[in-house]
Each structure stands twice: as C-alpha cells, then as structure tokens.
C-alpha cells in the first residue's frame, strides 16, 4: 500500500525526524526522573529547561511562565477551572461560538456544576468574532474571556490584540487557545495582551501527549493536578521528558521555518484553489479565505456528502477530514459551520483540507485530480445533484 497523501495537518502532524532524533536519548539512556538528584535525573531536568526556553522564545515570553501539560486540552482545562476556582464572587465567562470543545465543554461544566453564566459570542460568516459584541457582553461579573487565535475547522483568525486590549481595559483575564495558531502565523506575546495561552506539540511536528500553558506574570491559579509539585507546583506528575524535549525541538524548528512555510503554504493554497475552481463545478469555500490562515481550506461540494467524499478519497490514499460524522442524528454536525450560518445540508457536504510543512505541489495536483474524479463519481450516483443541475 502506498503512503497516504496527508491533508489533515490540523488534526495532527507527522513528527519531524529531527524531533524524533532529539527525543530518543530521553527514552533510552537519559531515562532519569527530573526530580532526582543524581546525574541522569539532572540531565533530564536540564533538557526540560532547554525545551522551556525554546518554547518561550517561540511566543516571545519568559521561560518561567511556561508550564508543561499533557496537551492543549489540559492547558485549557487548567486555566478555565483554575480561574473559576479562584473566583468566588464573579461568575461570568465570555467565549465564542467556534471554540474547540476543550473550551466549550469546560465552560459547560462550569455552568452546570459551579453556577457560572456563559455568554457565547456569535461569529460572522467569515467565522470572526466582533470585539464590540464582546464588550457589550461584559458585566461586572465577568471574570474571564476565552477566544481562540485560529479556528481549527475553517482557519479564521480572530482579532486577538483587540480582544486583549478590551480585557485589559476592563481588568478581565483573557485566555487564548492558540493550538492552531502557533507555527502557522507569528505569535508574539510581546505585542499581544494575552494573560494565558494554550499550545500543543503534536500540531507543530512534535509528539502527541504534550503541550503547555503560558501564564502571564502575576496570574495565580490553583493547579488542576496535585501531587509532587512538578512544574513549579502548577502541574504535578512526573514530566513527559522525551515529549517535552521533542516539543522544544519542534518549537525551534517551526520558529526558524515560520515565514518560509507561511509563504509556501499560501502558494500551495492558491494553486489548489485555482485548480479546484477550474476543474470542479458547484463547490464553495466555507468562510473567507482572506480572513484565514492559508493552511486550512473548508469546502462544500453540492449534491454529495462530505463523509462519502472523504471515504472515497481515503480509498484512493488521500486523507482529509469531514465536518459531520456519519450519523443518523444531526447532533454531530460541525458547530463551527453552523456558527457561520451554514445549513445542515451544506455542513454534510463539506470537507476540510489542511496543508502542512511537508505538502508538495505534486500532492496538491494529485488531490485536485482525485477530488475531481471522486466528486464526479459521487455526483453521478446522486439523485440530489441530478436534480440541482
């Protein structure tokens, strides 16, 4: 079987060989517990601190403000639950309708179990929140605003600087889930007024099972996980040393390659869109490509299902993701596409293509060729498409 052609970099990325090479010694010889006082333990501790510096450097912060976690979801839960635990009086959180479930479900948990009121700000058809809507939602009870930097499904970039300034003005904690932004666009916290930020290693060619939470100087929250006081007491549990080392190397690489990859991705996206529109009729981009990171393209193909298109592409060796799980209920439709005003039928006919550092021009050409073939074939089966033409 041929190696699949991968267009799902938003879901996860393949590990960079340099990352793997850097991690291996910490899975083999340097296996010590970083809390131990002998040399192999110290060596592991030292490696963690190097990684911390490289990750801090990637987002322009001090290394002492980075706390390693098991991933983006844990980082998001840590800050949301932490802020909530500290706030005995103010019980209002503002978020957006297109956040990742790691945020939305935690908000829902705080609503159900801790009496928080959650205001979910809608987005426009491009998938962008209006800062004025956030300002209007702020009350004397608002303790936290949490908005993602880049949406995972359609790639829309949020006005983070403006939201941050607004929160600063009202003295409200601003958390940003930047899992889909870091490594794709410049993220420099020297220029962005963010109080806390989440990142994940496996979205930037690092290993799965590791991420981090950045906390601005002076932000104090109780930890989510208690125990041995690792990570300055913020996250107990023996560190995932090899994972953290890999995360650090991955951060360094994406920082070095950021502008090259951004330019290349933009070129490949444009090539894809030009060929797509030339080759396939009746397809529509969800969201606004001008408001998006170039690596994410969400498209609907009328008259067919995204699920069957993705399945056919899979059989042809191409990996893409869908906006709706194959299900006989409507509850599994993408909440992001719903939020930008798409109908259930449009959501069901959509797929997401995400481009990454390893994507080549040849792969884009193969994708368009196979897409055309699959879309035409499925439309030839479909009574729905026959009727609409």
């Amino acid at each position, binding site marked *: 079987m041929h190696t699949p052609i991968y267009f799902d970099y938003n879901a996860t990325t393949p590990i960079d060989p340099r990352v793997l090479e850097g991690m291996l010694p910490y899975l083999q010889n340097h296996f010590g517990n970083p809390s131990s006082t002998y040399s192999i333990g110290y060596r592991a501790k030292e490696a963690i601190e190097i990684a911390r510096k490289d990750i801090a450097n990637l987002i322009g912060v001090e290394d002492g403000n980075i706390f390693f976690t098991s991933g983006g979801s844990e980082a998001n839960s840590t800050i949301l639950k932490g802020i909530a635990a500290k706030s005995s009086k103010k019980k209002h959180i503002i978020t957006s309708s297109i956040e990742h479930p790691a945020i939305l479900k935690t908000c829902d948990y705080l609503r159900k179990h801790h009496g928080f009121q959650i205001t979910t700000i809608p987005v426009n058809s491009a998938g962008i929140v209006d800062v004025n809507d956030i300002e209007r939602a702020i009350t004397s009870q608002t303790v936290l605003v949490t908005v993602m930097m880049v949406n995972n499904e359609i790639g829309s970039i949020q006005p983070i600087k403006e939201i941050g300034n607004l929160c600063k003005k009202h003295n409200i904690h601003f958390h940003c889930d930047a899992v889909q932004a870091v490594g794709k666009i410049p993220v420099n916290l020297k220029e962005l007024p963010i109080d806390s930020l989440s990142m994940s290693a496996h979205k930037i060619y690092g290993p799965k099972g590791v991420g981090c939470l950045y906390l601005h100087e002076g932000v104090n929250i109780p930890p989510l996980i208690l125990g041995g006081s690792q990570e300055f007491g913020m996250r107990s549990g023996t560190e995932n040393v090899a994972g953290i080392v890999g995360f650090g190397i991955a951060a360094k690489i994406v920082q070095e390659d950021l502008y090259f990859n951004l330019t290349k991705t933009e070129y490949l996206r444009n090539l894809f869109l030009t060929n797509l529109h030339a080759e396939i009729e009746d397809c529509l981009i969800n969201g606004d490509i001008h408001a998006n990171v170039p690596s994410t393209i969400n498209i609907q193909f009328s*008259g*067919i*299902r995204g*699920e*069957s298109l993705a*399945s*056919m592409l*899979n*059989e042809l060796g191409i990996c893409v993701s869908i906006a709706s*799980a*194959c*299900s*006989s*209920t*409507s509850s599994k439709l993408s909440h992001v596409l719903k939020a930008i005003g798409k*109908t*259930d*039928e449009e959501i*069901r006919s959509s797929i997401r293509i995400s481009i990454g550092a390893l994507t080549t021009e040849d792969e884009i050409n193969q994708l368009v060729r196979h897409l055309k073939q699959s879309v035409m074939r*499925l439309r*030839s*089966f*479909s*009574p*729905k*498409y*026959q*009727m609409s033409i």
Partner: protein
Amino acid sequence: MFNDIICDHFMNPRNIGELTDADYVIEISNPICGDTVHMYLKLNQEVISDVAYRAYGCSTSIATASIVSEKIVGMSKAEISSITRDDVVEWLGELEPSQLHCVDIALNILNQCANPTKKKFEQKEFLVEGEGAF
C-alpha cells in the same frame, strides 16, 4: 472503518442509474440524516427482473443500496417480504455503531420493493434536512 463488503459496494456500486421503462419507483429518505435512495424496478410476473438506483448519503448507505439492489434481482415480491433483519445484517457485514442505521435503510428499501405502489416519482422531493424536518 468499513468492512470489505461495504468498501467493495461503495467503491464499485452495482446497478447505479435509472430505468426509463421502470414499472415502479421507490423513494427512501431518512428525515434525520437525509440519506436518500431513488430506486427503479422492472418486474416480470411479480419477479424483479431489473433494478437501478441513485443514492445520496454516507458511503455505507450508498453501499447498502447497492447490496440490496444486487440481492433482489430475480426475487419475487413474496420472497422479498420474507427477508429478515438478520438476513440484512448478514448481507451488510459488521458495521460500526454510526453505520447501523443503514440496516433500517435496507429494510425500508426492501419493504417498499415488496409492496411497490408508485409508478413514477411525483415530485422527487427531498425531505428537508435538519431541524425543519422535526
């Protein structure tokens, strides 16, 4: 993901198309997920002599229509009536939970094939998907 039977019928569906001289047409629509099958039947003395269909839906539902279309050719309406859920489960092979609704799609198709009434599509209307359907 998909068992070999579903995969084969999805990638190579049998009997896709329309019959211009169909004796009956049947129309299956799942109001919740929107899966739709339009099937054309040609009968020779109560026996299905030819079948064609078009399908809109998930890959498993397209494969399901193909499997059913292949099975029913040569069967009488009475024979189709005697097909059980267990038979259908066996035809479709092992399904994941999200694909199980296709057993009901198959049974719906079979039920209508056993008692076809419509001579032609009246409007070929699709049920509205989503909340409007409830």
